[in-house]
């Protein structure tokens, strides 16, 4: 149990320190844009000043200490050059349709937005704020609650630009839309607060890939917020590929809202980052909607990957599926918190949640918690967690057929990861992820082998 619990109750500690991190960046907060945006930023800044960064005393952050982020006086990232060459080293960055956002700012020269059906708009969010204002204003910030969520408040305080995807009713976009967020700077420790807004009209269909990348070895902080609205009968297939520098901090939340008979699925791949927190929150807000939140993460060394998910069943007859899997080596730590809310009206809900982690070393740890809040009485909710090492009996069985220990182990780990990888419907993305994952695994395992006696 929480050994710090008693101390946390003492009055001296109940008050949060009022010292606001990132003071110098706050002095240079972005200006301009429409009036409502200026207003929103000011409210975000005010909320962040009041909330500060979360501490391990916050239930939502019990196992993830973000003090190392607050300890660095990150400056606001400026546009940088040389990004085009950099993209080549990352998974699926050569997609025919792509939006490139560098240090929070949309880069038109690197982006490819041609050949889309009539009425579909993709591109700069800042641009859309002025010339697609009615849509943007209706949806922007509706899902990301910054009154209680400190990183959302921080993002809102700095909101300026990002990626915008709009599909009118019945628009079908076949080519995956790849949004690439690049963060970092040569000499400075920078932070970026990119924003994504996806509005998929009734009966529309698209695939979205969000990639987060940066130069290896750089220390920077990406604090993203994405909002996805899936209107009646629309289908959005979403992928997140987090491949930040192994010295980078990554905090991001993905919010999805589904209307009647809408389908949203998201697959999250966390491969990089030193301290990573992914929040994925879906609201099933129309009957017959369906939601899938899957994830696969890989961590070695002293890295930390925290996945918090919430699936909020607000209406009846909605199935939801969730599988999160992690592979941990070194003294890596992982956190999985899967919340499922079934509201009073959400009868006939069918929610399934599975969480599995494979610990390759004795030093790796995971804290996992399913959290079910059920207020309806005619529902089906299942959850299961399994944490463990590779099954020795299975390894022996494979070896008894002639495979070496390393071959047997790799076959088992690949099988473990394949359950998520196989669900990636974009073939070149799946291949790139597979290659990247197994290359990283090979490095981790070489390290594990080095310590094996």
């Amino acid at each position, binding site marked *: 149990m929480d050994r710090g619990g008693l101390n946390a109750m003492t009055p001296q500690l109940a008050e949060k320190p009022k010292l606001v991190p990132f003071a110098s960046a706050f002095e240079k907060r972005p200006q301009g844009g429409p009036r409502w945006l200026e207003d929103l930023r000011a409210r975000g800044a005010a909320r962040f000043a009041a909330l500060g960064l979360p501490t391990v005393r916050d239930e939502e952050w019990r196992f993830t200490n973000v003090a190392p982020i607050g300890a660095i006086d990150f400056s606001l990232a400026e546009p940088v050059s040389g990004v085009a060459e950099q993209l080549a080293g990352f998974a699926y960055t050569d997609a025919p349709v792509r939006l490139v956002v560098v240090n929070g700012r949309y880069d038109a020269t690197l982006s490819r937005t041609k050949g889309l059906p009539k009425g579909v708009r993709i591109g700069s969010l800042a641009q859309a704020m002025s010339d697609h204002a009615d849509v943007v204003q209706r949806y922007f910030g509706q899902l990301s609650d910054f009154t209680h969520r400190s990183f959302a408040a921080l993002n809102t305080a700095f909101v300026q630009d990002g990626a915008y995807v709009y599909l009118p009713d019945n628009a079908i976009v076949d080519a995956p839309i790849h949004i690439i967020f690049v963060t970092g700077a040569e000499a400075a420790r920078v932070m970026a607060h990119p924003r994504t807004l996806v509005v998929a009209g009734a009966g529309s269909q698209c695939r979205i890939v969000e990639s987060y990348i940066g130069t290896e070895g750089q220390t920077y902080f990406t604090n993203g917020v994405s909002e996805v609205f899936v209107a009646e009968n629309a289908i959005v297939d979403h992928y997140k590929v987090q491949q930040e520098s192994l010295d980078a901090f990554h905090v991001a939340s993905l919010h999805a809202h589904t209307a009647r008979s809408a389908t949203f699925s998201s697959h999250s791949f966390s491969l990089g980052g030193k301290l990573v927190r992914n929040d994925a929150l879906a609201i099933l807000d129309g009957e017959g909607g369906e939601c899938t939140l899957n994830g696969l993460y890989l961590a070695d060394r002293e890295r930390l990957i925290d996945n918090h998910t919430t699936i909020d069943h607000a209406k009846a007859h909605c199935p939801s599926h969730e599988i999160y899997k992690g592979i941990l080596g070194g003294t890596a730590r992982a956190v999985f918190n899967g919340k499922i809310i079934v509201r009073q009206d959400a009868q006939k809900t069918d929610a399934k949640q599975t969480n599995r982690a494979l610990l390759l070393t004795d030093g790796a740890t995971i804290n996992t918690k399913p959290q079910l809040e059920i207020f309806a009485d005619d529902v089906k909710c299942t959850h299961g967690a399994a944490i463990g090492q590779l099954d020795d009996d299975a390894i*022996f069985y494979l070896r008894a057929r002639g495979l*070496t*220990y390393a071959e047997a182990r790799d076959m088992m780990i690949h*099988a473990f990861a394949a359950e998520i990888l196989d669900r990636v419907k974009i073939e070149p993305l799946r291949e790139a992820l597979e290659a990247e994952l197994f290359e990283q695994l090979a490095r981790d395992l070489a390290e594990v082998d080095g310590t094996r006696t």
Partner: protein
Amino acid sequence: MLEITRLQVTAEGKEILKGIDLKVNKGEVHAIMGPNGSGKSTLARALSGHPEYQVTGGQVLFEGHDLLDMDPDERAREGVFMAFQYPVEIAGVNNAYFLKAALNAKRKHQGLPELDAMEFMALVNDKAKLLDIDKSMLSRAVNEGFSGGEKKRNEIFQMALLEPTLAILDETDSGLDIDALKLVANGVNAMRSPERAFIVVTHYQRLLNYIVPDFVHVLSGGRIVKSGGKELALELEQKGYGWIEAA
């Protein structure tokens, strides 16, 4: 081919085999029988290199090489095959994929070219008929959701694919109905050859009606207490193990 001398084996700190001597020549089928707890399965597992069985004394030579000095996978690649009493279910590992990897590991070891997917499937189709292996079993995960009989047939199927020099069958007949038993026995009999030897560990004489052994050994209390020809199995069937244990 196989020469076991004064083999002593401990499992979980308990001495189970207390000095086994056994010589198996090419082309022979040896049945190992004995009551529960006599050490039959321990012998099979120790020969396959299971890490939970520690050899505390004795020697095992396989084709002149020290078998006990080899890792389990080396033994397999050298031609020792163990049909498990309880085949493990391995979620997510496709049966055909696994078999191809195993077969190619052995072929590589023998200096033979690896089989590609087409060649492998042709071979698989051939062997699958023999054991009435359903195609769907190949596309499923290794042993996952297989019935008891399917698991045992899958073991013999693997044996047929890997073509070992020495096959050890650990209670492959337990829990099989008569049809499955016949299939398994046919699979084994089809593989009998002057170059191959079998050690068939069984609790029941029934299997030996179908796989007729050249020699029968009775294990009791961690030692071979009686050896004989196939008629010994029938004698055991009639009299039970009591008269041997008492002797």
